[in-house]
């Protein structure tokens, strides 16, 4: 709940006037990931006044009032612009990794009031209020337009390089990375520790309270770390550390690193405020632009996976192969409408990978499966369709792509060839064509035996006794396409020989045992292997008298996607035996009966992107997705 409140706080951190400029241009061009939350969309779905009066809103305001010792009556009192986007981004450089938050403001006076207590530590430059907090490794800054919060930790290996270390006034220590410091003795907030860092800007920050803005105006630019645009190639070159005469005072070193970190953060904060919308930003990145959608409530984007993998995994590991080869950026978008909530996610692939996946995904589900679906009474289904032959053919290539450029490239090439030679892709694809459908058709009560004890009243000696009880078990039907069913038949016949399977009029029944409470039956017909719990259904399928009733929505889900999943909580609740319902918590049952259908789909490759969609229907009677979702959370919270 607390985390949710924090999330909602973050989301609601955006306010009224629509005049505020979108802040995306402030995000560095090479950001690692960006999350944006469109507050205007959210507050359209859930107006601020309504939100303030909701249980969740009240809880949130009470929580905020308590933590800030202020009295918040409305979400607007926070001073944030509720009609603009909030951005979070993560930036990785060779020297520092930062998490940053950009929140548009409607009324900066409210922020001034919020930080009034720290007024002495706030430093004003060109209308920007900057509050560095060394102990928290955080800088908070704001002007009239927006608030910027950044948290960063210095990559200690960056300062391991002796030349860099000297540049930042750091003594050089061998065995960098293994130092520890005693938390118990160190007060991080002790700011006035004289440190041997020879940069004026750093000193200024260290001596909080005696800051002189004029010095900062003339800040020494060379104290800035080379940011990702110019990664320092030689970082790892100097492995042998220069022996330093200074003693290993790890605490002092830690403080030094923190000071350097906060200096960098403060400097980069200033740059964010100075940055104009004509300067290069993440908006120059086409893949980011692809992910940005004004209709989405929230969007997430992560940079190229392969590039990141190669830039962060040490060469030592990379020589064994690049798992991420060919995989590009990732994005996700969340839409909340009147009818459903939809989360769509994509991953970019390079041309080679894309072509491979296209061949693998080039397979449609067996149309004959559709005859055996009764949509009106279905609880859920799961289907997949891939081209087994293409997969078998591509697998060695996938292997080669991953490990091909590595030290073992020759071995991998031999292995890949061996696999190709050994496997008869066509024959395998004949047995398992690559499409299957699992239907959850019903829930039914079955008698199950169990062991307990009978006690003799005379002596209390006890004997094992078999008892029965009623259990609710799912009924399902699984279908698999196969052009060559001989292997399945042979397996089943082997079962008959071992007396585990009985054959009756073409239907194989797997013997029910103590271990296996399911009664399962197998039928092979028209290139489909059926496995199901209902003998009636299988008999009808065998006789050709099975009457399916497929609705349009289910048909589309199954035929247009390589992967599809559907689940109807309402269907489940309707089929739940009353005994089970009584046993269950009433609220859970109510929740289940009121919940909307859930769909999960993946339609393969499109424009070089592989995608997946999760959709949850908003049940009738609910105004919109956000309200439904928040009500659901409220209800969940009251569940015991």
């Amino acid at each position, binding site marked *: 709940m607390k985390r949710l409140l924090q999330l909602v706080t973050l989301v609601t951190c955006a306010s009224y006037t629509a005049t505020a400029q979108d802040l995306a241009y402030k995000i560095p061009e090479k950001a690692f990931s960006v999350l944006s939350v469109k507050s205007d969309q959210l507050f359209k779905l859930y107006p601020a006044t309504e939100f303030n009066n909701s249980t969740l809103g009240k809880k949130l305001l009470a929580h905020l009032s308590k933590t800030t010792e202020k009295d918040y009556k409305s979400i607007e009192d926070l001073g944030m612009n509720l009609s603009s986007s909030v951005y979070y981004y993560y930036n990785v450089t060779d020297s520092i990794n930062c998490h940053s938050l950009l929140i548009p403001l409607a009324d900066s006076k409210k922020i001034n009031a919020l930080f009034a207590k720290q007024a002495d530590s706030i430093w004003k430059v060109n209308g920007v209020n900057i509050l560095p907090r060394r102990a928290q490794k955080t800088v908070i800054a704001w002007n009239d337009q927006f608030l910027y919060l950044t948290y960063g930790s210095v990559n200690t290996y960056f300062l391991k390089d002796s030349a860099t270390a000297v540049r930042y006034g750091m003594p050089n220590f061998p065995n960098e990375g293994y130092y520890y410091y005693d938390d118990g003795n160190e007060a991080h907030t002790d700011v006035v520790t004289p440190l041997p860092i020879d940069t004026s800007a750093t000193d200024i920050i260290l001596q909080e309270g005696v800051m002189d803005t004029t010095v900062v105006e003339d800040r020494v630019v060379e104290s800035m770390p080379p940011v990702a645009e110019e990664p320092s190639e030689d970082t790892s070159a100097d492995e042998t550390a220069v022996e330093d005469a200074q003693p290993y005072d790890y605490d002092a070193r830690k403080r030094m690193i923190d000071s350097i970190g906060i200096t960098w953060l403060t400097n980069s904060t200033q740059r964010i405020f100075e940055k104009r919308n004509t300067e290069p930003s993440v908006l120059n990145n086409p893949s980011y632009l692809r992910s940005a959608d004004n209709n989405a409530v929230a969007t997430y984007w992560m940079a190229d996976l392969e590039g990141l993998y190669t830039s962060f995994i040490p060469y030592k590991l990379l020589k064994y192969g690049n798992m991420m080869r060919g995989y590009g950026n990732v994005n996700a978008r969340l839409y909340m409408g009147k009818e459903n909530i939809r989360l769509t996610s994509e991953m970019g692939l390079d041309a080679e990978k894309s072509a491979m996946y296209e061949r693998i995904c080039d397979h449609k589900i067996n149309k004959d499966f559709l005859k055996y679906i009764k949509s009106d009474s279905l609880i859920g289904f799961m289907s997949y369709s891939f081209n087994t032959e293409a997969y078998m053919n591509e697998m060695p290539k996938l292997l080669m792509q991953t490990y091909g450029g590595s030290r073992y490239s020759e071995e991998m090439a031999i292995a890949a060839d061996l696999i190709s030679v050994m496997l008869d892709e066509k024959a395998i694809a004949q047995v398992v064509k690559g499409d299957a459908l699992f239907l959850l058709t019903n829930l039914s009560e079955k008698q199950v035996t169990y*062991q307990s004890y009978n006690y003799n009243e005379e*002596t209390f000696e006890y004997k094992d006794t078999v008892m029965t009880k009623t259990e609710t078990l799912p009924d399902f039907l699984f279908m698999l396409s196969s052009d060559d069913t001989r292997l399945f038949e042979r397996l089943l016949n082997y079962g008959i020989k071992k007396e585990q399977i009985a054959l009756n009029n073409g239907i194989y029944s797997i013997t029910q045992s103590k271990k296996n409470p399911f009664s399962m039956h197998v039928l092979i017909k028209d290139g489909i292997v059926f496995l199901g719990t209902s003998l009636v259904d299988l008999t009808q399928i065998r006789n050709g008298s099975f009457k399916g009733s497929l609705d349009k929505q289910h048909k589309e889900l199954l035929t247009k996607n390589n992967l599809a999943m559907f689940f109807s909580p309402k269907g489940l609740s309707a089929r739940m035996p009353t005994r089970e319902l009584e046993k269950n918590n009433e609220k859970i049952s109510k929740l289940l009966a009121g919940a909307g259908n859930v769909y999960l789909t993946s339609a393969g490759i499109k424009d070089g992107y592989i995608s997946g969609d999760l959709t949850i229907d908003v049940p009738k009677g609910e105004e919109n997705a956000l309200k439904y979702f928040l009500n659901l959370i409220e209800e969940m919270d009251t569940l015991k």
Partner: protein
Amino acid sequence: MFKNVRFIIPLFIISVLLSSCFEIIEDVTVKKDGSGNMKLTLNFSQSKTKIGAIMLMDSINGYKVPSRNEIEDQIEQAAARLRTMKGISNVSHTVDFTNFIASINFSFRNVADVNNLVKELLAEVDVKTKIPLTYRYNREEARFSKDYTFSPDVKEQYNKLKERDREVFRSASYISILRFENTISSFSNQGAKMSKNQLAIMQRLPVADLVSGKADISNQIQLSK
């Protein structure tokens, strides 16, 4: 050797939380001289469908589901450890993977050996609570006592459980049987029941009552001399 108990504990938690029922049977026979036999049985048979399904999975809710071999190994190791303990002998065990019933059987030279055993086992799994259950036998006075100290920590943990999970403990039963060579002349716990031949005493209660502190399983039993 009990290092891997952490491994078994998740299985137990999973079984308990996802299953509907289980039984714990503690069957102790005390001879005149204070030596005797103990059989502990854990019966998950009523929940075998669910456990069977869980065992098919690699992990559930982030817990690794141990394989059949791993469980057998653990129990085997536990039995081996018991064999090395002072005063404990004739250790045997059975595990039934069809019905999910496990039992362990051993003889003790003195009831104090059992207290010791519980203490050592708890210490090995880092349970820093007092021993909740101790046995005492006074040979001269022919008096057997079972002392149960309720731990409020356990209740606190129990109260933290969701209503639905508490239900599991409500339907689970704890059965304690104490057998003697002499007839029982009196016993203090009103919740217990004496056998017709007056040589055994049994108490059956929901595990929930035990962990919530509602029920007491302490008993002072006076035997005829």
